């Protein structure tokens, strides 16, 4: 199976700052798996990894063409097919988790995205996710406007003033990839205890303490 070099280069370009020198499909899979599990356990929506998803989808597509060309007598066809199915499961599960979060926290997420754009940071949502979020919030608006007619005491913005936010102080299990020193246990408290976490060790800790570390990839949620 040929590696899709063009796509891999795209990834390298878009991540100049992160020194991707060369990346094999196996490493992309590894990355996808980490991204999937992180997204599953993080209370808030994480920055999108569209590059990784695109590469995987590309790989699945080219693999499927190859599978079609295999004869039915070949028992390895099953193995190829199973791998493709496994990958597809992982990617869909990842994307669905994100959509679920968008549906739950749509107002909050759109607000945060706006702030990010103002500050000139890149968006967390991908193009399509952003569109979905906007569509979703518009339909919610329409729906509530309609339904509020039945409740004369409430105005239509009653619902949107109660913003649903993810609880970033929730507890998560994590595994560290490097040694981290002086991590506050409770980030909301200025004189909270500090802990040192050795590379490879696993702890349960408040998500807000490690939020940045999850986003830059120093720790994985498990």
């Amino acid at each position: 199976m040929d590696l899709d070099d063009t796509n891999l280069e795209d990834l390298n370009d878009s991540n100049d700052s992160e020194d991707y020198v060369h990346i094999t499909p196996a490493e992309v899979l590894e990355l996808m798996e980490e991204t999937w599990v992180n997204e599953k356990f993080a209370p808030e929506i994480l920055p999108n990894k569209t590059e990784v998803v695109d590469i995987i989808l590309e790989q699945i597509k080219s693999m499927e063409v190859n599978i079609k060309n295999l004869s039915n007598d070949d028992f390895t066809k099953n193995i190829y097919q199973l791998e493709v199915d496994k990958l597809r499961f992982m990617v869909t599960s990842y994307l669905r988790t994100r959509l679920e979060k968008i549906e739950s926290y749509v107002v909050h997420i759109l607000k945060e995205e706006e702030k990010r754009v103002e500050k000139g940071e890149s968006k967390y949502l991908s193009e399509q996710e952003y569109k979905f979020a906007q569509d979703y919030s518009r339909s919610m608006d329409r729906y509530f406007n309609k339904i509020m007619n039945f409740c004369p005491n409430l105005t239509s913005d009653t619902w949107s003033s109660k913003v649903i936010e993810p609880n970033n102080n929730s507890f998560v299990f994590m595994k560290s990839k490097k040694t981290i020193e002086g991590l506050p246990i409770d980030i909301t408290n200025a004189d909270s205890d500090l802990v040192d976490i050795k590379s490879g060790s696993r702890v349960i800790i408040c998500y807000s303490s490690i939020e940045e570390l999850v986003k830059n990839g120093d720790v994985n949620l498990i």
Partner: protein
Amino acid sequence: MDPDELEFLGEKSKIMIIPTFNKENIHLISGDLGPFRASLPSQVPLWVATLLKKQKRCKIIPPDWMNVEYLEALKEQEKQTSGFTRMPSDHYMVEAKLLLDCAPDDIPNADEVKVIIKDIWDMRMSKIRSSVTKLVKNSDFYAAVDNLTIMEINSVRPILPHALDNLFRMKHIEQPKPSQNSNVSSFLMSKRASTSFQLSNNEDY
């Protein structure tokens, strides 16, 4: 996370098989396998091994740790120490389950192995339960879980993180906070355990 998804994560660990077929390399996205020569051992991911085994195209060589002597020693060690022993594999439960289900004929004393692994699991689970109680009683907001495997961590989810969420919240309610957030309430949606009701200071709902 569902046990199925944990199985998914555990399935990619490598295992040795003895194929009964000849085949050139298999080029998977996750890397190349083979070439396979009948009766020469070859390394494949666990999910490939179980698939081939179900098709009766290979014999599985059980991992080093999956034998009675090693596991007995491990069980003894687990019994002696108050902490958790390091497990030979991060996905030992998944591996044991898959292999014992599909290839009991390739594992010497499969039944005995099964019983010992279950014993170790039970012992560890009861240790986990008592450490969880201790953690919650002390209301510590940090704990190292170094030697716990993913499956064991998953077994205390969502109850432990959720209990700590609530303790954490109570602790923060005790200290009066500036009222900037007082009119914002956030609700728990869906079954996701990591989110929950955030109590607001003014009870206007």
